[in-house]
């Protein structure tokens, strides 16, 4: 690492002496380390000199921690801290209240000097709609933090913040997040709108219970020598494995930690909620018997309604990322096969973003939801793409492949006897990298319904679906980098070259280049087909100026007849299918009148550049 840094600095033509001295004597903060003070006196003099200069390493205005998980109030407090530190750029808002009365907090990131957020193409980033899929919240926080701390420091970050707006929602399901953080919600996807899961006409009356108070919902097993279905594994006694057919084991599993709260003879059968918050959006929404957990009607859930109302009110959103876990996937819709594949113009855009993501995010695969994962009806990415015309992606954060990453270790894992063979890999990681912290031990417990049992044997909720804490900053950064790439490839319209030719008789021929230099079109092909996005508008304004004809120029460089635009009002031309990505179009006007005319290309998702041209 240091060698690499050294090489970089040398390459940057710093004085050799300075470059060499860095590894020897400076800590990251630029303060002299103990080693420096013991250096030979000549070098010490130089070092003293350096120490007086500013450090080459950056310091941060706001210091946040990304190696742990934040509950809702911590997330919101950190957002407030950032807002206070960067009041010009950040605006903390609430999109609404969750069922449990918690704010669905969002941050608007925008540079007001370059215009209001609503006038810019915007990237919407949300996380944690599933209560137990927490780490996206930290990515959101990291993204806000990173953009602010590096604005004015890294040119590309500066440009992104100047050109785009960001709407960032660290947790769409704050009830679920706090249930995960503070309660027995280690596995709970749901929000907390009550549902009668067991059809006994009571709601949420019998949830899981952390009987031994260790913060983990664990398995319950009972020791029944010779009569059980499970046994301790010979590979590792902590593994409880089912016995082969025809044999008996010493244990039976009695389900997850809980008691019979409602006295119906069943344990933990009706916990909080009991639905899937990401099946409640009104695109390809299907009732519960087709799509489990969809609830009774779309946007019935206050959380889905709040974020949808926000998106509907912000048609400038051109990109959407919803962070989930886990598995290492970059997912796009369609969520169900019968929706049909998108038009090729759209899939090409998604494909390029997805493949770029596979390079930015090692071990992540770019997949279509229905074919690559499973069928999802009423998910937010279908809603985003199909009804809102937003390029919508969902990252399934964290892949278990990331526990052992090198090709050598992957090879070693193929050996079933290896200490990191798939069967025991998690135990190895827990033992040697987490120092045993992530696995609970079996302990006896006197259960009110089951008698004497053992509770334990569970990996904690902070293992498996979320990365190890020490790896989370990398997860945050890589996923942010991918999402910022998507944000940067949102459409960016500009007016390019213009040309005026005087024809006499008060007539002018005017050519205007319209440019979108980014990957994404201003309007997706599917959105144009279904007329779900307001059209782009090409307007020409000038005092006493009349447009006699307008046409698209097939080629600027060879003779061609402009294709007439068959619309009545040529001062306000509707461009219904928008402007494709990485494309320049030339419009040719035949104008009567003179003086300044202003051409504006108004695109909700691509910006609204304008240029004034003098006809004389």
């Amino acid at each position: 690492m240091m060698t690499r840094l050294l090489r970089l600095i040398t390459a940057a033509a710093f004085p050799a002496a300075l470059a060499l001295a860095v590894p020897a004597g400076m800590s990251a903060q630029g303060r002299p380390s103990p080693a420096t003070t013991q250096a030979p006196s000549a070098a010490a003099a130089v070092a003293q000199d350096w120490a007086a200069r500013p450090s080459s390493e950056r310091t941060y205005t706001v210091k946040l921690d990304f190696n742990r998980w934040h509950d809702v109030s911590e997330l919101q407090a950190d957002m407030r801290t950032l807002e206070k530190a960067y009041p010009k750029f950040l605006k903390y808002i609430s999109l609404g209240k969750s069922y449990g009365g918690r704010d669905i907090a969002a941050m608007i990131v925008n540079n007001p000097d370059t215009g209001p957020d609503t006038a810019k193409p915007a990237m919407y980033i949300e996380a944690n709609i599933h209560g137990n899929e927490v780490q996206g919240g930290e990515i959101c926080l990291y993204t806000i933090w990173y953009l602010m701390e590096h604005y004015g420091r890294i040119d590309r970050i500066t440009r992104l913040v100047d050109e785009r707006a960001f709407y960032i929602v660290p947790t769409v399901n704050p009830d679920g997040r706090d249930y995960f953080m503070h309660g027995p919600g280690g596995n709970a996807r749901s929000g907390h709108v009550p549902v009668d899961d067991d059809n006994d006409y009571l709601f949420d009356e019998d949830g899981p219970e952390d009987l031994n108070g260790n913060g983990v919902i664990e398995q319950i097993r009972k020791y029944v020598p010779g009569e059980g279905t499970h046994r301790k594994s010979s590979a590792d006694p902590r593994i409880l494995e089912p016995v082969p057919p025809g044999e008996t084991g010493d244990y039976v599993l009695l389900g997850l930690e809980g008691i019979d709260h409602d006295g119906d003879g069943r344990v933990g059968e009706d916990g909080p909620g009991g639905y899937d918050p990401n099946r409640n959006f009104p695109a390809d929404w299907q009732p519960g018997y087709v799509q489990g957990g969809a609830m009774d009607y779309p946007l019935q859930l206050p959380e889905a309604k709040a974020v949808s109302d926000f998106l509907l009110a912000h048609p400038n959103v051109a990109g959407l990322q919803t962070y989930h876990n886990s598995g290492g996937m970059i997912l796009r819709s369609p969520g169900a096969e019968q929706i049909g594949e998108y038009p090729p113009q759209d899939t090409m855009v998604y494909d390029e973003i997805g493949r770029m993501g596979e390079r930015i995010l090692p071990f992540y695969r770019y997949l279509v939801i229905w074919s690559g994962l499973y069928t999802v009806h009423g998910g937010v990415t279908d809603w985003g793409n199909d009804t809102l015309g937003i390029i919508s992606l969902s990252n399934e954060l964290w892949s278990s492949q990331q526990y052992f990453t090198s090709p050598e270790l992957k090879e070693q894992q193929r050996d079933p006897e290896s200490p990191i063979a798939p069967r025991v890999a998690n135990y190895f990681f827990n033992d040697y990298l987490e120092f045993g912290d992530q696995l609970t031990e079996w302990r006896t417990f006197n259960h009110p319904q089951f008698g004497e049992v053992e509770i334990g044997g569970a990996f904690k909720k902070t293992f498996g679906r979320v990365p190890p804490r020490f790896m989370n900053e990398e997860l945050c950064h890589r996923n942010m980098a991918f999402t910022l790439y998507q944000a940067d490839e949102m459409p960016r319209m500009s007016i390019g070259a213009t040309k005026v030719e005087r024809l006499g008789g008060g007539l002018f021929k005017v050519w205007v280049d319209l440019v979108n230099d980014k990957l994404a079109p201003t309007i997706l092909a599917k959105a144009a087909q279904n007329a779900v996005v307001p059209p782009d508008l090409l307007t020409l304004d000038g005092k006493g100026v009349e447009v006699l004809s307008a046409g698209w120029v097939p080629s600027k460089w060879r003779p061609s007849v402009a294709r007439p635009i068959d619309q009545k009002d040529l001062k306000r031309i509707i461009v219904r299918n928008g402007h494709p990505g990485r494309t320049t179009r030339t419009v040719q006007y035949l104008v009567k009148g003179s003086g300044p005319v202003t051409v504006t290309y108004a695109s909700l998702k691509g910006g609204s550049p304008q240029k004034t041209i003098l006809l004389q």
Partner: protein
Amino acid sequence: MRTLALRVGAAVLVLAASSAAAGRTDPPPQAAPAGAPAYHDYAALSAALKAAVAAHPGLAKLASIGKTRQGRDIWAVEVASAKGRPVGERPALLVAANFEGDHLIGSEIALCMIDYLLTAYASDAEVRQRLDASAIYVLPRVNPDGAELMFAPVKAFRRTNATPIDADNDGRADEDGPEDLNGDGVVTVMRVRDPKGPYAVSAEDARLMKRADPAKGEAGGWAIYPEGIDNDGDGFINEDGPGGVDINRNFMHQYPYFEPDAGRYMASEAETRAVLDYVLAHRNIAAILAFGESDNLIAGPARPAPATRLDLVEFAERSFADARRTGMVPPLGAGFGRGFGRAGAMMPGAAPAGGAGGRSAQGAAPAASGRGMRTVQPATSVNAADLEYLNTIAAKYREMTGLRATGLVRAPAGAFFEYGYYQYGVPSFSTPGWGLPGGARPSAGAVPPGAAPGRAGASPAAGQAGPPAAFGQRGAGRGSTGPAGPGSDAEAAAEAIDLRLLQWMDAEKIDGFVPWTPFKHPTLGDVEIGGFKPYAAVNPPASMIADLGRAHAKFSVYLASLFANLRIAKAEATALGGGLFRIKADVENTGFLPTALAHGVVSRAVKPVMVRLDVPPDSIVTGAEKISALPTLAGSGSRESYEWVIAAAPGSSVTLTVMSQKGGSDRATIALR
């Protein structure tokens, strides 16, 4: 000028009433003299509801279940006697009307039903029995903003609420609505001689128009437009009028995606959500009777009435079908930029050979996991096991109302009553509330006196080809770029009933058609204005309301007699000695309907019957569990038996509870001796 119609209305009342006897009946939506039958505007409806409820304090409650965009209340009336079981635990009938803004006849019938039930309670034993044991919830006007337009000075074809929608997606909402050019208080259609026009005067009736068929040597020569001007100068007339969303296109079953009058998305409207929240908060609703512009009662639940249309309206709407396509930039020639004009455009990074594994140019990498997984498809036809129940009810409906044939009806994509069966899981019906004379496939003829007269479905535009709605509504028009909704094929095949409707109006002396009259149009020049009047094809004359109301009120009482009725038929305990008791119980459904329809079970919309013996679980030695779930129990005395052996103190007692959503609950205390 345009306020004329309404203002004059009151003054002309007497005249209208007397002229009715002399000859022509005024078209439905007119005010009437005191005491004479009339359609109710919002204020009159609200007053009538308040008065009815106030006059029957122990029998009716009025509540607002939501506010519309224009601030009107969506009223709900609960008709049930206050004594006896809590209303929420009784099976209930939901009557709901006027989802389509122009279908006021449903609203009027619903109002009559309330009055009938409240009045008859004192004298009619059958009514009393139903209102004691069950409940009838009435939503008389789900779309009051839309309905109010029937009382506007100028009436146009429109079914929607007041939500602004950019129907032609040109970046402006509601910028090109209809005008009453000839000042007759109604917006109809314009025909103009045009060598390129595809329409000709009908040979069957010179008032009607037909599409000329060149294959038969027919020449056109006429173009047809809705009455109005091109307000926004886009070359189309009335392509984006005020409002809105058709509430009966906004529910989730077979929702017609991307059609402008269906709303931006499912359940997008305050009216829709209010109704959904209401029915979900009243899970005791065991049957639904909706009034609307689709039918599954007159034609029967197995074969909903085929959609019909009015050609005159359809032709006019087609004139702006292209409005929603204007501005599609075609792919431009080779050498132009690097656009997406042709498949496989020159996009860096999009090359098929790209990533590992040689994936195709389009679509993300396929993986094995999702493909081949079993997926469930939503039901789109009535479950065979439910059909007999529904047919029985529909037959009774025809018998009780005398209705045999429908007029204007449309395919029910996104309609409330379809939600009622397919997602809410109860018997759910829709009727226009009246009909045209005739048999299963009627022709024009005399209307039996007293029976329901004409039956028209949609505002004339309704049920037309594909998405389009009435004038002033937004319609993608035939062949629009959006994918057609589920109902579209059926609607495109709809039969034109212009002639049938006109002949019926003639026979009934209903003033529902404006004769063609010359007019100087600002941009089209010499035109003729005429055609069907808004509302006239969808609503019968007010004089028919009372009879229709009475017939439907009686039908609602019949419906309420069918509900499942869950009871504990037998509950007994036998001592086995040693502190053990055998308990036997029979649970019975004495009603006609099952506790859940087959589709209610399949769709998991209706909870199972719960049978619960209220004892500590560990006191049960053998037999059933403490709680059993029975998916459904058929009616007509069907029984299910349960048995437990429990340990209990002799001399004590245990309670047996049975609960259902649609058939009530029962409780028995069993003494252990």
